[in-house]
Each structure stands twice: as structure tokens, then as C-alpha cells.
């Protein structure tokens, strides 16, 4: 600190210290969590260097030889790079457009149900599918969508032709995102329901006095009340743009739908993790993270300027 002072900014630094000292108890609260972050997140960060090395388990992280950007180039030069990128981005973009708003709509819907018992039932039922394991969800999809399954029967009854939903590149994204919505909308709506319950009831009363219809009350009271949480979750979602859980895709994947189901996470799993290629895996992971971070910074900056809500 003394060195700083001699640098010729005495006023600003000491004012900061004074401000900090006044709120020392807030820092006391932060002490334990911050130590935890340093130890458990920043401590192991030296492991990142394996992305630039030819990591050899036996020689350790520090002892392995440097490889420079070899692993990154290998990924960029992979025959499948563009397909992986395209599929990852389109699936995430479609999810953002279609799957992201649905839990919000569900929460608003639940909020509008006046029969409290019915509303609780609806919440409880939509919540359950979250706990069905992925293997079983895929099993259910197989039964549903097989050529002799109920969906195909319906399609044929309506005059359509037999469709192989699970073995066609064209249907893959619909099946994947649709089943995600079906499984997770209830679970994801919980956070919005909680936020809705934090809205001051007097605001609704006031709106009603002004003669606002229910739709207008949703638009002018409910929605603004949960906008901060929506914005934050949106930012966090964009910050995961390059990631897709690989388990479900892997189970749904076959050579006939690979054209649209081949994504970075499954690629990392099959060519990196399963084959013990730590460095390659780390390099692709780092590439993803950097893109994710850049996207997050962009969206966060945009949010800060337009909506007052942002990460910092």
C-alpha cells in the first residue's frame, strides 16, 4: 500500500481502504467462500497447461513436454470440425429460442391458476420427469418413436407415412430438444415460480385498480418482476453455448443421424476421454471455454446497458 501511495494516488487508494474498512464485516463473510474458491478452483488451475503439452500421466503435468498449439490445430484441422461446430451452435441456438422461454411461460401459467390445489398438482407432476434417468428417457423415446409405436400410428392415422424419427438426421434436433423440454420445463420453472412469489402483491392490486386486464397484469407486473432472474439465466445460458450434455446425445446417436447429432461434447467424449487423450480433451475444452466466456461478456455487456441487470 505504501508503494501505491508514493505512486501519487494517495487520495483514491486511501478512500477505497476507508470504504473497505467500514464494511469489514462483509469481507469477513466473504473470507471463507473466497478461500474456498482460491483453493479448489484457482489452485488446480495449473492443470490447464496440459492443453499445450503432450501430457503423459506417468511424467506428471509439470514434467510433460510442451506441444504448443498442436492439439488445438489438430482439432481445427479435423475433418469434422465444421460439422461439430455447426451442430453444437444450432442445437444451442434452437434450444435458446424454443426451450428457454417455455419454463417462463409455464411459471406464468402456474401463477395464473387460481385453484391452488390444482396449481400444486401441476407443479408436482411437471417436476417429476427431471428425475427420470437419461437412459430411461431414451428408452421411452425409442418405444414412442419406433415404427410400430404410438407416434407413428398417429402419423399414419393422419395420413402420413412411416417415419424413422430416431434414424434420420432431419428429425434429430426436434426429438432432442422436444424431449428436453418435456423433461425439464417443470424443473426449470421452479426458479421463476420462486421469483414470482417474491413480487409485492400490492403491485397487482394497484394494476387492478387501474383496470388492467389479466394479460396486461402479467405483462406489466409479473414479467418485470422476474426479468432480472430471466436476464441472469439467459446470460448464464449463453455462457454455456459450446457445451451440450453428451450422455443423451450419445445414446440417441447412430450413424444415420450423425450428420446432425455430431456435437463437440460427444466428439470429445469418444475421441478424447474414452481414448485417454487428456491433452486433446483439455485443448478442446479450453477452446470452448474461451468462446463461452467471450459470448458471456458480450451478452453481459449488452444486458448491463439495456436492462440494469448483469453479472457485475
Amino acid at each position, binding site marked *: 500500500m505504501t508503494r501505491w501511495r508514493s505512486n501519487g494516488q494517495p487520495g483514491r487508494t486511501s478512500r477505497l481502504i476507508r470504504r473497505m474498512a467500514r*464494511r469489514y*464485516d*462483509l*469481507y469477513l*463473510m*466473504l473470507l*471463507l*467462500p*473466497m478461500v*474456498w474458491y482460491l483453493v*479448489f478452483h484457482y*489452485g*488446480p*488451475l*495449473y*492443470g*490447464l497447461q*496440459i492443453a499445450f503439452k503432450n501430457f503423459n500421466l506417468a511424467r506428471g503435468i509439470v514434467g510433460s513436454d510442451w506441444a504448443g498449439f498442436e492439439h488445438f490445430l489438430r482439432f481445427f484441422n479435423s475433418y469434422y470440425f465444421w460439422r461439430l461446430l455447426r451442430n453444437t451452435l444450432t442445437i444451442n441456438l434452437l434450444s435458446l429460442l424454443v426451450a428457454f422461454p417455455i419454463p417462463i411461460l*409455464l411459471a406464468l*401459467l402456474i401463477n*395464473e*391458476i387460481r385453484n391452488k390445489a390444482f396449481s*400444486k398438482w*401441476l*407443479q*408436482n*407432476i*411437471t417436476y417429476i*420427469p427431471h*428425475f*427420470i*434417468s437419461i437412459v*430411461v*428417457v431414451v*428408452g421411452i423415446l425409442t418405444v*414412442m418413436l419406433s415404427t410400430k409405436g404410438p407416434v407413428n400410428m398417429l402419423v399414419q392415422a393422419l395420413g402420413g407415412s412411416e417415419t424413422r424419427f430416431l434414424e434420420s438426421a432431419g428429425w434429430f434436433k426436434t426429438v432432442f430438444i422436444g424431449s428436453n423440454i*418435456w423433461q425439464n420445463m417443470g424443473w426449470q420453472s421452479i*426458479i421463476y415460480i*420462486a*421469483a414470482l*412469489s*417474491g*413480487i409485492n*402483491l*400490492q403491485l*397487482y392490486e394497484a394494476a387492478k385498480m387501474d383496470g388492467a*386486464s*389479466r394479460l396486461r397484469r402479467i405483462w406489466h407486473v409479473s414479467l418485470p418482476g422476474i426479468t*432480472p*432472474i430471466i436476464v*441472469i*439465466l439467459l446470460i448464464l445460458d449463453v455462457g454455456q453455448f459450446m457445451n451440450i450434455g453428451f450422455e443423451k446425445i450419445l445414446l440417441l446417436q447412430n450413424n444415420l443421424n450423425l450428420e446432425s447429432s455430431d456435437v463437440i461434447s460427444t466428439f470429445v467424449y469418444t475421441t478424447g476421454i474414452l481414448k485417454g487423450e*487428456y491433452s486433446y480433451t483439455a485443448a478442446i*475444452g479450453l477452446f470452448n*471455454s*474461451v468462446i*463461452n*466466456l467471450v459470448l458471456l461478456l458480450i451478452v453481459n455487456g449488452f444486458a448491463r446497458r439495456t436492462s440494469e*441487470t448483469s*453479472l457485475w
Partner: protein
Amino acid sequence: MVREETGMSKEVIADDRAVLPADERWFDILVYTIAIVIMLVVSYPLLFVVSASFSAPAKVLAGEVWLWPKGITLEAYSNVLHNDKIWRGYGNSILYTFVGTLINLGMTLLAAYPLSRPDLPLRKGLMLIVTLTMFFSGGLIPTYLLVKDLGMVDTMWALIIPGAISTYNLIVMRTYFQSSIPWELQEAAHIDGSSNWRLLLSIILPLSKPILAVMVLFYAVGHWNSFFNALIYIRREELYPLQLVLREILLISQSDAVDSSVGLEDKILLAESIKYVVIIVSSLPVLLMYPFVQRHFVKGVMIGSIKG
């Protein structure tokens, strides 16, 4: 206090009905129709899981079961319920979930509250430090070596301490504090001379029941469903959480027929139906949790507390 407020919201509803204009009624019909459609769509797979758990595995595999059970059998249930490892796993999971969630909640609160304060110097920098951890991690090996050097391998702490805070949850909680608790309220308390600790305990916490309930749910479900850390850090079988025990059982269905033991095929088939039983048995506790969490999603808490 809470009860009083629900009472109030009922009054509001009753009041609503009295003056229900026609378009409001249409709105209600629309709301209920959509709700019922969603309920049916979502109930179907649940019914399927229950049916499949009672059905003969061969029928399930052949795609014959799609609504009601076929070839009803309780074999899968008796197999699961007579397995001592499962019960021990149950006990372990309950313990880990309880202790873990408690620590999660404490740690997240300690971080989220100060970071929600607009008057905290260096807040942006601290937020950045926290947020970056969502993107960069050292990977499995350095983390393992750390946990090992802390002497936590093969103890329940390896499942709890390294995951003490979820940054995602931390950010959600902080956002709730910022957006749902009026800053004026906190400033007023400050002027009264209460310390930040007092402020947190006597004003923030009572006003944050919905988000605390959500956090309990998120963290508890996270602990309940997690297996990877146990896979890496736990060696002694008596410490296995439920999910690990269940994964082992389900793995039978991937056994290599080449080195099959006697009756392996039967076991593979059985594992098929066990899959469904496992969902029912293992998710029951977390399903039962939700109504308790729901109880805290009550409107009007805010006003009541200000009044009180």
C-alpha cells in the same frame, strides 16, 4: 405471519371472482386447458415408467408395453428391495445430502449476500473471480491430487467440500437478493446501526424464503443425483452413495456375453426392468421433498415482514 398472508391472497381471489368479466373467464378457460394438456403430456412417461417397472422385461424390450403393464411381475422390486447395499447406499446418500446441503447453503449465503451489496468495494472484481471459475478448471487430475493431499479421499468430505459452492446457484441467489429485496430496506436498517451480520440474519433471511427453498432443492437434488465424485474419491464400498450402488447394478446389462457367467442373460433382462424400479425407488425422497419446498413459495411474504 405466512399463514396470515395466504389468508389475504385468498381474499383477493374471492374478490376477483365477484367481479369476473367475460374476457377474464375466457382467460381462465384458456389457462386451465393449457394446464391440463401439459399435465397429460407429462404424465404419460411417468405412467410408462411405473408400468414398465411392473412388466416382464422381455415385453418392455419388445416394445409391447406402452401404457399398461404386460406380464406383471414384482421380481424387479423384490430384487431391489432385498439388496442390502441399496439400503446402505440410501443411508449414506441421506447423510451426504443433509450435511452437504447445509454446508452449501451456508457457504453460498456467505458469498451471495456481500456480492449482492451495491456498496461493496471491489465487487466487480470479486464477481469476475467467481464467474471465471465457471469456465476454467484445472481438470480431474490436479483436483484429485489436492483432495488427496487434504486427506479427504475415502471420506464423505471429498463429496462435499470440493463442491461447497455452485457458482451458478451463487449468482442466482445474488440476483434474487438484488432484485427482490428493496435496497432502501437495508439502508434504513443501516442507519438504525445494525451490523451487516444482523442485517443478514434478521432481515434478509426471513425475506428470502422462496430462494432459500429453491437453493435447498437445487443443492439437495444435486447431491442426491451425483455419482462422479464418489466414483473418483470413494473406495470403501460401505461409503457408497445410492447412485453408485444403482449404477453398479445397472451395469450388469452391459456385461460382455463372451465372459458370461451362468444365467447372465437373465440378469441382463432383469437389469432392464430394474432400470425403471430404480427410478421410482431412488427418486422418491426428492419427489417427496418438493411439496415442502413449495410451501415457501408464498406470495405476500414481503409485505408481511415489512409490516411486522
